[in-house]
């Protein structure tokens, strides 16, 4: 379970998050919707400890994120996998090295075992045999899938998705949505996805939260979100549908 309690975060004079409260149940996929620049990615980075909140706290499995203890923070991150907006693959490494990097640096697995795990994860995301390609040789959709394989490599308890379909054509976006949905059913990891893509949100989310002006203004299932009369949610859905 991930519990976000009263999180506030400002950058200079600009307050991005003004008291966010949200609970993500074990095995649940929570999608956080919001306009571009509303602080969704900031919230994700606060959850994984890449940024420190000005006030409030995040509990992961009941334990507060140890923002001020780098050693504990690095250990806590071992429970997480994260898919970045632009995949954030390392250009100098091959696909296989990218996927296996966390295993190589954080586990005592030998090279053969790492290679086996890398092949298995690449097979899971439909990129069997791509381990010797360089990121520069991949399309946008393939990069996202490699990023997904890398996020899954350590068999994480928690997975964070930052704009999983941004920059992809609708067909490839749909493929990624289906892949994420399948992986959620298969691994049952507690997940948070942030997106401004309403179609993606409805496809992959168990519940949907809307972040607006630094606060969560709506939380509900997909059906509840579609039926709500909350003007901000309606505006968002209509804007997207139109």
């Amino acid at each position, binding site marked *: 379970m991930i519990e976000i309690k009263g999180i506030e975060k400002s950058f200079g004079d*600009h307050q991005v998050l003004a008291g966010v409260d949200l609970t993500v149940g074990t095995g649940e996929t929570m999608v956080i919707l919001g306009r571009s620049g509303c602080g969704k990615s900031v919230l994700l980075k606060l959850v994984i400890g890449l940024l420190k909140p000005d006030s409030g706290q995040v509990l992961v499995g009941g334990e507060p994120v140890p923002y001020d203890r780098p050693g504990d923070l*690095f250990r806590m991150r071992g429970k997480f996998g994260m898919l970045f907006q632009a995949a954030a693959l390392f250009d100098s490494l091959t696909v296989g090295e990218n996927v296996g990097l966390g295993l190589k640096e*954080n586990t005592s697995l030998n090279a053969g075992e790492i290679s086996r795990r890398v092949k298995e994860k690449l097979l899971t995301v439909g990129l069997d045999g791509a381990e010797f390609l360089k990121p520069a040789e991949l399309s946008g959709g393939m990069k996202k899938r490699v990023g997904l394989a890398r996020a899954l490599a350590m068999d994480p308890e928690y997975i964070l998705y930052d704009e999983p379909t941004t920059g992809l054509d609708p067909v490839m976006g749909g493929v990624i949505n289906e892949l994420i949905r399948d992986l959620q059913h298969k691994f049952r990891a507690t997940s948070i996805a942030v997106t401004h893509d309403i179609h993606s949100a409805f496809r992959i989310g168990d519940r949907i939260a809307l972040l607006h002006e630094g606060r969560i203004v709506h939380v509900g299932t997909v059906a509840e979100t579609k039926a709500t009369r909350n*003007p901000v949610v309606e505006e968002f859905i209509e804007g997207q549908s139109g």
Partner: protein
Amino acid sequence: MPARLVIEGDSAHIEGSLTFPDVRRVLAEFERALAVRTGSTLEVDLSGLTRIDSGGAALLDEVTERGRGRNVRVAYTGACDEVAEIRRIFSSGAGARVAERERAGLLQRCGVWGYHTWAGFLEFLQLTADTFYWSFAGLVSKRGGRKGAFVTQALLIGVDALPVVLTISFLVGAILALQSAAQLRQFGANIFVADLIAVSMAREMGPLMTAIILAGRSGSAIASEIATMTVTEEIDALKTMGINPVRYIVVPKFYAISLCMPLLSILATLVGILGGLIVAFLYLDLTPAVYTREAIEILTAKDIVTGLVKSVAFAGLICTIGAHYGFRVQGGAEGVGRTTTASVVAAIFAVVVADCFFSLIFYF
């Protein structure tokens, strides 16, 4: 009913439904009204509004901003609760923030600048401490390091820089010899050209010129590589995988530059002395044997050691300053360019200041 804007003197009122499809038209009408007035107030009555959406709320913000540009204060009155609530939800608040910034005085701006500069300096010290810690830790344990990165970096920083370092050092030696020869010849002190070149190259010009070249060449490469990794979230990706970016990215570069810089400095010194020798042979009638013997005799162990100590210190400064600016980058490609330039300027400045400091402690 679509929105209808009626302007009468210094007041206006809007009726109907102000939604996205009306925004362009109503904005053009407001623009025409603002164009004919300066330095006044335009009071807009919103009591006739039956509906507003985010487009309408953004329009009202935009009119406020455009009014400010023409020194016209736009005031909205009479909005019903529903309209006021929608405006509150969707207003960007940009106008209020701009006004707040405009009110900041010189003292406040100086204070903000000082605070950010001090915070940046503390971050630099933290990074330097981390780099030293992980450099020593990396000698004991290889875990968390990047296999093969040291050799790659040493080739990039050391071998690839060799041609430019040697060429410039040769020319510096020759220029020093030419400049001094003109004076020394008047006193029949030609032989002292060898002393001057040897001492100045070993103590000063060899390490300094090498450091300045590497600050421009390798310092910029370090800053731009790390800055690019930061803006593409690769640094964040490393952290989420439990990998320390300082140990994984910075330490191999630190090892490489700390080894290559003294070696390049030694070569630069030798080539600079060679440049002086050629000038001395061609213009001062000194034989290579006499010049070489004089240069070797004048050099002391202290000259060599101080040059090496300085070059190692310069290497550390160039690497940590480049990394510091790389990690602090903000924005996209433009930010990378800006931070790279800033890192080179800061590195050269720091090298010159450090050189001054070393001259004080070694020779006074």
